[in-house]
């Protein structure tokens, strides 16, 4: 029973990450190019801004709480302690993953801030940074022998 519960928590953690990274990929690789090609200037910017805002809200309201909650719970379930984080191996991979995730969040926030101030180049750069580093987080997650 307990195993099933933890499998469920792990499932939520993975699915949430999948949706978030997949969402970024979809926006960057599918929505943006099409929007550029099909929509004219003003509508494009309206649509893209709306997409960005909605994605940002979802990130803050759903994705982050879910990831942090399930992530902390999973770490607790496999017995991760503050001290074990300092040790090479599982602890260090987890720390690297968390640091990279912080980097992703920083890039995502910068993306939002840059968009708000109309700095399109920085915004676009940070969006791609966030996307690539997110994939990096997934890579590090696969290195954790037991998620």
């Amino acid at each position, binding site marked *: 029973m307990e195993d099933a519960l933890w499998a469920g928590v792990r499932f939520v953690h993975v699915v949430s990450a999948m949706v978030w990274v997949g969402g970024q990929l979809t926006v960057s690789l599918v929505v943006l190019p099409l929007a550029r090609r099909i929509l004219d200037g003003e509508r494009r910017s309206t649509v893209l801004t709306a997409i960005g805002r909605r994605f940002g809200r979802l990130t803050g309201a759903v994705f982050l709480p879910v990831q942090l909650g399930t992530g902390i719970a999973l770490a607790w379930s496999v017995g991760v302690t503050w001290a074990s984080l300092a*040790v090479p*191996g599982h602890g260090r991979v987890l720390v690297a*993953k968390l640091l990279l995730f912080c980097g992703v969040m920083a890039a995502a926030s910068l993306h939002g801030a840059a968009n708000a101030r109309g700095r399109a180049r920085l915004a676009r*750069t940070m*969006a791609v*940074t966030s996307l690539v580093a997110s994939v990096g987080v997934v890579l590090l997650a696969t290195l954790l022998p*037991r998620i």
Partner: protein
Amino acid sequence: MEAQQRLIAAHVHLNLLGWVGLSVLGTLFTLWPTILRTRIVDGTATLARRCPSLLLTGLVVAAAGLSFDARWVALAGLMLYSAGVLVVLVPLVRTALRERPAGAAAWSVAASLVWLLAALVVDILAVAGNAPHEVFAALQPLIPLFLVGFVGQVLLGSLTYLLLVVLGGGPKAVRANGALLERGWRARLVCLNLALPLTMLPGAPGAVAWAVVLICALVFVALAMTAVARAREVTVSPAVLGTGVGAVLTVLALVFALSGTAGQASGVGPTGQLRTVEVALGDMVIEPATVTVDPGDALVLQVRNEDAQPHDLRMDNGARTPVLGPGESATLEVGVVEDSLEGWCSVMGHRAAGMTMTVLTTDFDAGAPTDQRGHSGSHPSASAGHTESTEAWEALDLSGEMSRGWEPLDPVLPPAPDVEEHEVQIRVSESEQEVAPGLRQPVWTFGGTVPGPILRGGLGDVFTITLVNDGTMGHSIDFHAGALAPDEPMRTIAPGEELTYRFTARKAGAWLYHCSTKPMTHHLANGMYGAVIIDPPDLAEVDREYVLVQGELYLGEPGGAEQSARIRDGRPHGWMFNGTAAGYEHAPLPAKVGERVRVWVVTAGPTSGTSFHVVGTFFDTVYKEGAYLLRPGEDGGAQALDLGVAQGGFVETVFPQAGHYPFVDHDLRRAEAGAHGHFAVGED
């Protein structure tokens, strides 16, 4: 070794203070005023001509002093060099007083000079306080500070200035580039110089400090690249730039994630648990000797040297502490433990003397069913020993021929010398011996042979033994034939030392003597044993007397992991009579029909005794552990002399016919693994 350390110290000084230091100081005569946008102060030219000779002389003297083990010469040289540096600083300070430093370039260079002065002070203290061969070891941890604080900052300052010049592009562009390169320079300068000394902290704080230093450097590199890109009018698409930044972040995270895990097998997943254990290094002992963890646990050892001499702790996964002086401590991050590990003090001889420990995993006894890796057992040394034993059996060809020129240890026991006081010198040496046909093995010996010299005397005789340790580790000696307080005579003596061991033979018997330095198993397993024969008063005359000391054979490097595991498990590669497995198969013991032959047998172990048997005959006399079990003329006969570990006795027999009579340990596993030889009995 010491000479090499001295040369390294000299080499480091020549490189850092000479090659790097001199070129920086020379450049600063002109670069410093240029950065401050002022003229060179008067008199600089004269100084600039004189300083090099002062600096160079000081440096050469210092390097020579370090190389040739002359501490005070080295110190004088360093003083001279430092004086030269101070002289160089005079015009630099005068320039700065005329035109106050402003901006990133000037302050970086200024900060770097503070680091140079600090480095010289530390260097002088290090040379004054350490023997030249210890100077490098003392300074080594500080060298990164010098490289970053002095060399790195001078480079950073110069580049900040020189990049503007190189990029050029008119006053407006220069101002724009200048503003770009100096972005956040005060914060960067302060962070770097505050974080740099903190990098010396152990553990996480030190790592964080290094991260801060690295970020400061990377920010400058990023700014410089941006400035160059701007000047060259290079534009990079946000997608490429974003991918680059994301990839760099990922690679940094990956490198960090995988750091410190190299060499670890991944058979067991880490549990995320951390075990911290306090370990005390004592007098030839590590406590606790065994630490048990769950496989996959991360292990941290808090190591403290509680002994009066230096020790360290080294694990066979490569983790090790520095050498700790008395009372010093260190934190040893062993890492994730997936299989059992051995730990030992790597100071010469200490491992063999018993400074070992074992980290066991709790699946030690779990056995094959839970082991998914296909070994018959999950104990790593057992599985390693398994493959190793196959190789050893291949190397151990008992039916093979002894090497040309091999001489068997003479098994003939001469009568006791006609004296009551026996004075014997026994020199301990670590040598090599043919322990089985065609197989040479390092051995530790009393007197150059395994077993050591066989001493013989009568009741009441006094033996005065001078033990001289010509080995490379501590050794000792313990004569079972004497009764005395072990404290002094059985003490371990260091290489080069000697002791006197005096005992009176109050009881008859066939006695063992052996090295009693910890771990005794290792000292006995590697050959440190011998025998003392004290004749019973009524000992009859016989035609021939032989002595056989039975011991175990453990192949491999003495004290090495393989051998240690074998010894611990009590699984010798073979058994030997008088130091060679199957040796007397190639050099039979002669006898003649009708002769009465007495064979003295002593067992050295360290883990097994014997059941001594001669094929084709029986014994009519058995003397075991100081008493006759059987005498000639009685009705009974004996087939084997059974001896536990560290026991002795003799048997007598009369060979009925000419022929070849094998003698064996009738525990036939041991016989087949080398505990056999034979008597070649000829016609009278």
